[in-house]
Structure formats: structure tokens, C-alpha cells
């Protein structure tokens, strides 16, 4: 499973240079996949059985607070390159796919440290956001939102219903944003 995921993440940059190639979607994990499905909840946040942050959508469509927060932060910090709703743009990959094909820790690493693909045919540079609290304090939120988009558990646009912000999330946010 892990090997498979790593292979995909190596291949995704080339494939997604324009917009997500439709054929790729078939190989993506579904929302019931243990790597995606929420196994437990802690203070308003959801995790897989491997303790990786993930989204939760109730039957009536209510999303967990982190997913909603991720929607907001994504559309402030990421969408000017990566397009609305994690769909990709003419020059940056569709992150809704990256969140599924990349390992969580790799994903965090690329956001924090940045990455460059500069050669004769492309000038693709992901900046380092490691010092930006507007991104780093909400990175898990952005990650779970994109995971929810990648599996289409959350449709394009603003999630209509959300759980309230928990006290724990509020405390953590205040501490992180300073």
C-alpha cells in the first residue's frame, strides 16, 4: 500500500502539470479506505486508524470544523496558484489529488520546505510556507479539506453545514497564531 502510494506521488507532478488527468481518479483511494476513513475523534478533530488527520462528513452533510477551516484557509493561501476547490490551475497541480496520492508527512514537508521543478519545459516552484502562521497553523485543516475534496466527500464550493469550533481547537489556534 505504502509503496503504491509513493509511486503515485512520484508520478503525479508530470501528470498534473495542467489539470488533473481524469484517468488518474480511478486509482485513488475511496473514502472507505482505511487510509481515509475516520477511525476516531478527538476534541473536534478526526483521525485515521494510523493517527493521520482526516475529514468527517455526517450523513446530513455536516463537516467537521477542521474541514471547514481548511476550505477557508485553502482559498486564502493556496488557491491563487492551485485553483478553486483544489482543482488545479493552468500551472499548478490539483491538490485535491495530491492529498490522496502523497503521504501525509511528505505533504507537510513540501508545504513547509517548498519544492522546485525548473527545467527546459517547466518553471514550477512551490514556495516554502514554513514561517507563515496563516498556513502552518492550519495545515492539518487544509490537508483534511483537500482529502475530502479528492474523494468528493465534500463537493466544490463552500460546505453548507459545519460542526462548531471546539474549545481545544480554539486554544490551539490562539497558541499557534500568537
Amino acid at each position, binding site marked *: 500500500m505504502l509503496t503504491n502510494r509513493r509511486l503515485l506521488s512520484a508520478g503525479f507532478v508530470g501528470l498534473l*502539470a*495542467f*489539470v488533473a488527468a481524469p484517468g488518474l481518479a480511478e486509482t485513488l483511494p475511496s473514502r472507505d479506505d482505511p487510509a481515509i476513513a475516520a477511525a476516531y475523534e478527538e476534541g473536534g478533530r478526526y483521525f485515521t486508524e494510523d493517527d493521520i488527520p482526516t475529514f468527517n462528513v455526517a450523513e446530513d452533510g455536516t463537516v467537521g470544523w477542521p474541514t471547514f477551516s481548511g*476550505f*477557508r*484557509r*485553502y*482559498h*486564502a*493561501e493556496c*488557491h*491563487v*496558484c492551485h*485553483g*478553486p*476547490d483544489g*482543482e*488545479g*490551475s*493552468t*500551472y499548478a497541480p*490539483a491538490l485535491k489529488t495530491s492529498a490522496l496520492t502523497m503521504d501525509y508527512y511528505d505533504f507537510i514537508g513540501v508545504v513547509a520546505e*517548498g519544492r*522546485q521543478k*525548473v527545467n527546459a*519545459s*517547466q*518553471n*514550477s*516552484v*512551490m*514556495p516554502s*510556507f514554513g*514561517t*507563515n*502562521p*496563516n*498556513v502552518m497553523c492550519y495545515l492539518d485543516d487544509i490537508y483534511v479539506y483537500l482529502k475530502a475534496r479528492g474523494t468528493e466527500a465534500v463537493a*466544490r*464550493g*463552500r460546505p453548507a453545514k459545519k460542526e462548531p469550533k471546539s474549545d481545544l481547537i480554539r486554544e490551539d489556534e490562539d497558541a499557534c*497564531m*500568537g
Partner: protein
Amino acid sequence: MKRILLMSAAMVVGLSATASANEALQGLIDDPKQWAIQTGDYENTRYSELDQITKDNVGDLQVAWTFSTGVLRGHEGSPLVIGDMMYVHTPFPNIVYALNLAEDGKIMWKYEPKQDPNVIPVMCCDTVYRGTAYADDTIFLHQADTTLVALDAKTGEVKWSVVNGDPSIGETNTATVLPVKDKVIVGISGGEFGIRGHVTAYDMKTGERVWRAYSMGPDSDTLMDPENTTHLGKPVGAESGTNTWEGDQWKIGGGSTWGWYSYDAELDLFYYGTGNPSTWNPAQRPGDNRWSMTIMARNPDTGVAKWLYQMTPHDEWDYDGVNEMILTDQEVDGKMRKLLTHPDRNGLAYTMDRETGELLVAEKFDPEVNWTTGVDMDPDSDTYGRPAVVAAYSTEQNGEDVNSTGICPAALGTKDQQPSAYSPKTGLFYIPTNHVCMDYEPFRVSYTAGQPYVGATLAMYPAPGSHGGMGNFIAWDNIEGKIKWSIPEQFSVWSGALATAGDVVFYGTLEGYLKAIDASTGDELYSFKTPSGVIGNVMTYEHAGKQYIGILSGIGGWAGIGLAAGLTDPNAGLGAVGGYAALSDYTALGGQLTVFALPN
């Protein structure tokens, strides 16, 4: 003969070429065979006297030749033509090619600067570049990393170079420069990174900095004279660039200067607009945030401001005021006036007296514009010149963490930088527009140097209840403040227009079409699908007795962000969503110049 022809144009657009305007460049601009400046002329009319291609024969247009730039991202601006030479620029890495038109476009020289690729992600919205400028046998290249380079037009050798800004704090460049007299005037981008916008003049011969005028800050920085610099006819008073800000916020106040500049040699004033105040969360920066969102008239030798007008005090929607300032001499109420016409991102088109800064007309150029009911035109009113904001669409009044919905236009404006054209024959302005609305939710952000400083979540979608498309191409009467006709387009029109004496108007579309329309009626006369979406500007020139039309293809820019994947209307029924097709269904990345001519 040439001169005589030009006199007729001079009557309408005020081409009173005095010795002060960089005589050699003015001479080239006056010769319609050349395309010597990105904006067509100092007045930004993008009008050509060439009339070989007419509304009667434009249907026969054919591709004459093409050129691949070797770069695949958004291609804005256009080539220049000086004599036998054509100068083609690219987005980052900002290559310049000199092509010899007398030798079938042979590459005479190529200049490719070495730039740190870390500048790429600091550029908001793709790595576009709106083109080189020419004066005194020199090509002026203003790179993404803000290095301004003077290249020998014959050899491509570097004469001098100077660094204008600091990408590590978010300062970048996307704009062309304005050569005036013995100076080159340059702007800066970075409003989404909390920069403090500025305009700077460099000595054309040496690259030495002559003056710099900031968009906000103390008078010594903004180059404003408390007594003689006026806002709507009244002196601005002391420290006008700081006294509408809280504390030191003006230091990261935005007001970038990346748009199109125009110049009036007779009045010896140049004109440009300033961008949004930083951040996009209005609650975090109380006050009018002067002089963001402002039309500026400055002296090119000293930088001192003569007059200014803040269109959108305390911006709540990212309506940058940087769009083109088109200078015309037209009759208003039976009197000839020196006018400045500016179709703004905020959806209002302004007509001003460019000598005094008097506001004459401010009207919506898209009927869907809803954030304001209009501008107070009463000089005796306390709110003279201010737009009346509709509370429901005020992201300030609705507050932080509240999603204000259905605001028209969207942040990319009723139009963005894509420049309009003006035909003195019809007296009409031809404006490429966006027909897109948005939801906008501001929230608190903290500032980190060199990092995005945005603070709002946006969702954009085609104007609801309209024709379903995301753009229009309109003919505008700047005296009456009325739309004469409007051509609906499926996507935003992100290409600069060209008007010609052949009674034809040209523009490009995001699907990649070059279109020719009748300047009077808007009827489509010709269209051709180029290899990639068009965000470049149409230009024309004559070589060896033949008129050519040139356009850069290469999808990207702001338009490539949202439209690539398609925009959805969150308020539309399920059936409607599929109607807003994605641009990626129509075109893919490219970088090509296509040149058209009539058959031999």
C-alpha cells in the same frame, strides 16, 4: 505625407508631440507602421491608423507566419516592431527575441536573464510579463525579479541593469515600463504580500535612480505637496499618505503599481493607478487607506503628484485601481476637454478632466455591478466622489468570519489589466470585461515578510441570472457613461483590444480565438483559433507595404487560475452547474505568436 496623415489623428487624441516627449520615440509612435510602445501610443488608445485591413476584407485574413516562444505559461502583452525588427518577450524566465522581419523572422539575438526561480511563487497569479519597452536604440526589459535591464536594440548586449525591488519581501514585476524623455518609469507588484507600492524613475542613459514615489507614507515618500497636490480639486493637506491608516499599517499598506501608464506631453503629466490595500481583510486596516485604489497624475521629472482621485476608499473586495488610463480630447457639453477614461476593476468607468482631476462621469460598465449604487457627484457634498456602498455586499459591515455572498464584480474586477482600445473615428471605447461575481469571507491574518498576506476566502462564479458566460466585450460611451453594445463571451475576455482606421476592432479570447468585429456594430467579421488561450494584446504593424496583425497565445494569468477547472455557481441548481464549462475543455498550455495578413 506620414505627418499629414497623423495630424488628423492628433486632433482627436492630442498627439501634440513636443520636444519633451522623447522625440525619437514619439516619432516612431506617430508612424503607424511601427508598434513602438505596448500601449500603441502614450495616450493608451491602442488605435492604429493602418487601414489596409478593413471591415470589408478582414474576412479574408490568413495566418502569415508563426513563432513559438519556447515558454509555456501565461503570455500577456505584445511584441514591439521598430523598423525591420520585432521584439518578442516571454513570461518568466523573461526571454527577449529580436526577429528580423526582412529575413523571414530570423532570430538576430536572444537574451535570457538568469533569475532565481524563487521569485515564481511570490508572483501572484502566474509568471506573466506585459512586455518590453523601446527608446533610444534600447530595449527595456523589466524582469520578474524586478531587475530592470537596458539592452542594445541591435545586439542584445546589456548596457546597464538596476534592481528595483526585493522579491524576498514579495516585490515582483509583471508590468512594462514607460519611457518618458530621458527617464524610464517603473512600477511594482506585490499587493498580496503586504508590500508598500511605489513608482520609480531611472535615468535612461545610466540606470541611476532619479526619484521614487510611494503609494502611502509620509509626504517625503509619496512626493505630495500638501498645498498644491489636489484630490477632487482640494489640497490633500499634510501627511495624507499616513493619516488614514492606523499606526504603522501604511508600511505594509499595498497600493502596488503594476498597471498601464499613459503620458500627456503637453501637460507633462503621466497617469497610473494604485492597487488594493493589504490585507484583503478590511477590518484589519481601518480608515480610507490612502493612497491605495487611486488614479495618480505625476510630473515625470520630479515624481511630484499634481492631482489624484481615490476611487475605492477602504477597499473591501480587492478592486485594484491599476487599469489603463486612456487619454483623449473630446467634446463635453459643447466644449473640448482633455479627458482621462479609466474602466476600473470595481465596475465603474471614470471619465475625468486630466488637467485638473475633476470627476466628470462615473458609471457602471456592467449592469450586474451591485456593491455600490453609484458615486456621489455633488461637489458640495461631504461624500463627494465616494461610492455609496450597499450594506449587504460590504465585507467590512458584515464583518470578519462572515461570508458575504453574491457580490458583483468578483475580485478580478469587471475588467482587470487587459487593456481597452479607443477609436477616434467612432468615439467609442472597446472594453474587454469579466462577468463574474463572488462570495467573500474576510478573516484575521498575521503578516510575515515575503509570505502571502491575504486574509479572505473567495468563491467566484459567472454572474447569476445573466447569459451564463463569464465575459463580455463592450463598446462604451465615456461621455454619456453608457454601454453602446455588448458581445457575450463564454469566458472572461482577458486580451487587450486593438482598434484600427480600417473600422475593425480585434480581441482575443480565452479559448484561443482571435476575433475581428465591426467597430460600429460589433458584428463578428472573422475568427481564427490559435494554439492556446489568448491573454495577450492584439497589435498591428506594416512591413514591406503589408499590414499585419499579431497576437500572443499562451493561457495563464489570473484567468488560468479559476477558469482552468471551471467556476461553479454555488447558488445555482444542480442542472446549471454543468453549464459553466472548464477552460481546460477548450485549450491547453502554449506560447506562440501568430501573425495575420491579407492574401497576396
